């Protein structure tokens, strides 16, 4: 059974049809590459799955059950974790504060609960070590390199036992070595049975790590193929519109 099933989803912002009748499904342990030109609707789709937007039409199903979400917290409760495009970091906060943003750890009882700085620093430190990143939990994000910022955004997805991880351009603006680390992490997630959606403009990333590629063009799905049956040339053609559509 697919872990996530997207059926006939459309999203309209007034006159802009960001997504039109998009359907696809995601099996446990599957890695899907979601590709498309700027403005094709990739981030919009991510935000729908993340609980930031409600679809205008269509529905989501998780493990066969209808999934209706009103806010991001609910998506996380269902085991959906996101690395947002541009990482969604607060420069004025520490790395640990960013990792735990929106789900801060607290200690104490009832209304007398205060932030548990110690536990958050400790856990964030462990996650950075796991990700082989030099990031220090107490440092401000403002002072961090691109790779360290990336690690902070990715560490968020490791806070709970996720079933699905969506990564919106996680390899933009980082070094070759760090790209390899991110791809390794994706394989590691896959091996644990976690489904991953990787959004990227980098053909090599998608072709190294993904099982399937889905292409969006102007809000419509124009391809959904096993990576083995496709080629970078074909995908490029689909993205630009040189190739209209493939089954």
């Amino acid at each position, binding site marked *: 059974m697919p872990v996530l099933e997207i059926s006939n989803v459309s999203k309209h912002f007034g006159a802009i049809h960001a997504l039109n009748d998009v359907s696809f499904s995601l099996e446990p342990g599957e890695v899907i590459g979601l590709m498309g030109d700027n403005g094709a609707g990739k981030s919009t789709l991510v*935000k729908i799955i993340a609980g*930031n937007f409600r679809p205008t039409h269509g529905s989501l199903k998780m493990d066969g059950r209808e999934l209706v979400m009103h806010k*991001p917290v609910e998506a996380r409760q269902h085991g959906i974790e996101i690395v*947002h495009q541009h990482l*969604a970091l*607060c420069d004025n*906060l520490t790395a640990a*504060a960013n990792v735990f943003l*929106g789900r801060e750890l607290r200690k104490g009882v009832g209304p007398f609960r205060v932030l548990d700085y110690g536990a958050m620093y400790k856990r964030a430190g462990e996650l950075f070590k796991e990700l082989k990143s030099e990031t220090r939990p107490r440092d401000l994000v*403002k002072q961090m390199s691109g790779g360290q910022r990336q690690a902070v955004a990715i560490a968020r997805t490791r806070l709970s036992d996720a079933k699905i991880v969506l990564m919106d351009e996680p390899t933009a603006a980082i070094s070759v070595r760090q790209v390899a680390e991110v791809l390794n992490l994706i394989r590691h997630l896959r091996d644990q049975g976690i489904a991953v959606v990787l959004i990227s403009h980098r053909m090599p990333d998608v072709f190294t790590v993904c099982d399937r590629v889905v292409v969006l063009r102007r809000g419509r799905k124009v391809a959904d193929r096993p990576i083995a049956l496709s080629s970078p040339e074909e995908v490029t053609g689909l993205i630009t519109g040189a190739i209209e559509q493939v089954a």
Partner: protein
Amino acid sequence: MATTIDDHIGQRQHSLLSWLTSRQTFWVLIAVILACAFLSFATDSFATSNNLFNVTRNFTFVAVIALGMTIVIITGGIDLSVGSVLCLCSMVLAVTMHAGYSIEVGIAASLGTALIIGAVNGVLIAYVGMPPFVVTLGMLSIARSLAMVASNNTVVYQFGPDHDKLLALGGGHFFFGIANPVIYMVVLTLITAFVLRWTRFGRHVYAIGGNENAAVLTGVPVKQIKVAVYMISSLSAGIAGVIETGWLGAVTTNLGTGMELQVIAATVIGGANLAGGVGTAFGAIVGAALIEIIRNSLGLLGINAFWQGAFIGSFIIVAVLFDRIKNLRQPS
């Protein structure tokens, strides 16, 4: 292992010093101390207990509102209505008590008014999406006008059966000869500092100012927090209004005119960044203290009081300039 711990401690001590000197609050505190030292030597009248009592009490009203303003400014907003809200809340208190109600009813009505005004500001800003500058500028005009309507633009100086209680609340000193307003200010500062550092709400306030979009995406309840923040700001103005009414013993409809500028100056001098994301409760207090000492010293040094506005205005500009220079030195 031992060396790493030593290294760590060494690093800590080093970073404590560099942390201190990188804080605007630290330098402003130094300025306050230097100004006090200078004034004690240069004038006979500064270091008298009477004058010090006056100075500490005077700056508390600005300081209390600056606490609320700091929270708003950390989220990247601004509240221009606080001076008028202070006036309206004072007037509601005065009129209610003048009509024969008890001090409890008067304070409840006054602070209730403050919360309603803050909620209106907050809803228009967070849910309707209007700029804070516009909404609170409108409210600045509305609140003062309402104060005039409530009192028919007269001075209220008789507060009914609980008249003496109100005057004792604002003008007296319950503990060790420290003026009551100072005690309220200290308590409110501690509460604000605690909330900003130790609660999830406080963390989210900083997050919104740092990157509002990121806060939305990570599930921070941005809209609710913004409404709460403007309610807190109004409430701080209301509290200051209640205390000031008790201290003055009379309310006129021009109470708190132009106070928003002093309050914003205090927060900015205390290290809050108008672009959002930065600010502390302690900074707001130190900023308010510096302004009051400058104001006080103008009088003591025999400088015309009309210069006050020029000083406060320059202070805002210099404080923001300071920030600019700091950012230039460490390119991001």
